[in-house]
């Protein structure tokens, strides 16, 4: 039986060392004789300590079905310099547009993506495959048996989503249109939907 403050420290150690988001079930499997309530208590105490706050370089976020420690965005520039600029670049608009189609319509084939975008998409899809943001999920049983593409766990991690269910419904984006005269305005509104998913600035780890 592990002591309560040891439990919290052990959780901290595991999250620090893990290279992937750790599901809570995996954590609970680590400690014998610890009831779920104690674990939850220790976790929320730990997460409270790892809130984004001034003077803190790390915080705990819940993403892709697990918990992980990430760096505070304020220190991006230093990390980029430290890792010699490898990674840490924004995705192109074409990549994000394609990613949105795959995310909302998965599993989806290349011709379907192209039909929706109205243009060639092979290069973009290849790029997304390499970044592991999408994967081949099988083949569609139609003429030519084209590959079906889906999003990956990496996609969830990239966009800070706990699961695909956290994507705002596509229909919500429609409401911001129509009679709205200013595109910029309607765009601003639609962003509100995702603010919740972006737990960066508002402070992650509240809900769990």
């Amino acid at each position, binding site marked *: 039986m592990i002591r309560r403050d040891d439990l919290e420290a052990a959780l901290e150690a595991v999250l620090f060392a893990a290279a992937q988001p750790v599901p809570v079930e995996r954590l609970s499997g680590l400690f014998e004789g610890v009831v779920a309530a104690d674990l939850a208590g220790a976790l929320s105490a730990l997460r409270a300590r790892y809130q984004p706050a001034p003077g803190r370089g790390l915080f705990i*976020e819940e993403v892709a079905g697990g918990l992980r420690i990430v*760096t505070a965005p304020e220190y991006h520039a230093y990390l980029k310099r430290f890792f010699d600029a490898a990674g840490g670049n924004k995705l192109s608009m074409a990549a994000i547009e394609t990613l949105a189609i795959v995310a909302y319509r998965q599993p989806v084939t290349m011709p379907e993506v192209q039909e929706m975008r109205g243009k060639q998409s092979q290069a973009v899809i290849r790029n997304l495959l390499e970044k592991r943001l999408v994967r081949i999920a099988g083949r569609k049983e139609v003429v030519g048996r084209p590959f079906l593409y889906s999003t990956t766990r990496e996609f969830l991690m990239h966009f800070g989503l706990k699961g695909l269910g956290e994507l705002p419904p596509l229909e919500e984006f429609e409401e911001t249109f129509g009679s709205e005269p200013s595109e910029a305005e309607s765009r601003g509104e639609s962003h509100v939907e995702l603010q919740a998913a972006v737990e960066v600035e508002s402070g992650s780890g509240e809900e769990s």
Partner: protein
Amino acid sequence: MSQAPAVSSLLPDTWRVHLPVFDGPLDLLLHLIKLNEVEITDIPVATICAQFHEYLRLMEEMDLDIAGEYIYEAALLIQLKSKLLLPHPRNTDGEPVDEDPRDELVQRLLEYRRIKEAAQALAEVDRMRLGLWARRKPAWEQDEGEELDLDEVSLFDLLGAFRGVLERYDRENPDPIRLPGESFPVRGQFERLLGILNAGAPFDFIHDLRTRTCRAEAISAFLAVLELARLRLVRIHQTESGAIVLYRTTRDLAAEDLESVDA
């Protein structure tokens, strides 16, 4: 269907320099719909079609590469326009079919606009989360038998593994050292044999052939002897024991002789 002004009046005076670059034909269509202040669900196809083609002409004038997708969309618009000009199809009862040929285009444009908005939102998240770094698997861990989520093994993992195998194979089985093959021009053998014969004694050609380093050189030497004989620079005799003996004749080597050998 409201009548929209001509495209020239919709574009700013300085359109030649400020021609917006559209992100694909659907983007252009949305832009035209906005310019005409019409609803997506009630597109004045003839007007939009004309403006779309006008835009393609502008692109042409400006020497922009018009991607095939624009032309495809332009063709779809013409097809749609012609459908609208035809009398409404009637079903078997003679009643007009209550179906707008524009529906498909409308659905596509609505879907595209939704996706574009969703993409904008995702881009915002991408931007905000850019600065978040998490621990990555160390390189050594990825090399070892890494526990992979089976579902997540992609073609690229396979390709990566395959490349690793190939690299290891190449490391363990370095390419053999290759020496460039020697070539034996007839001219070289010609000069070698002539040199030996000029030096004095007649000699046994069969023995000479046997001491060549390889088949190619022997063939070349044989051809050289034929050349020497043709140019009457040597005489060829066979002894009773079967040896083939070459004798140098008195004829001098002429420049054109060598040219004929090279030829």
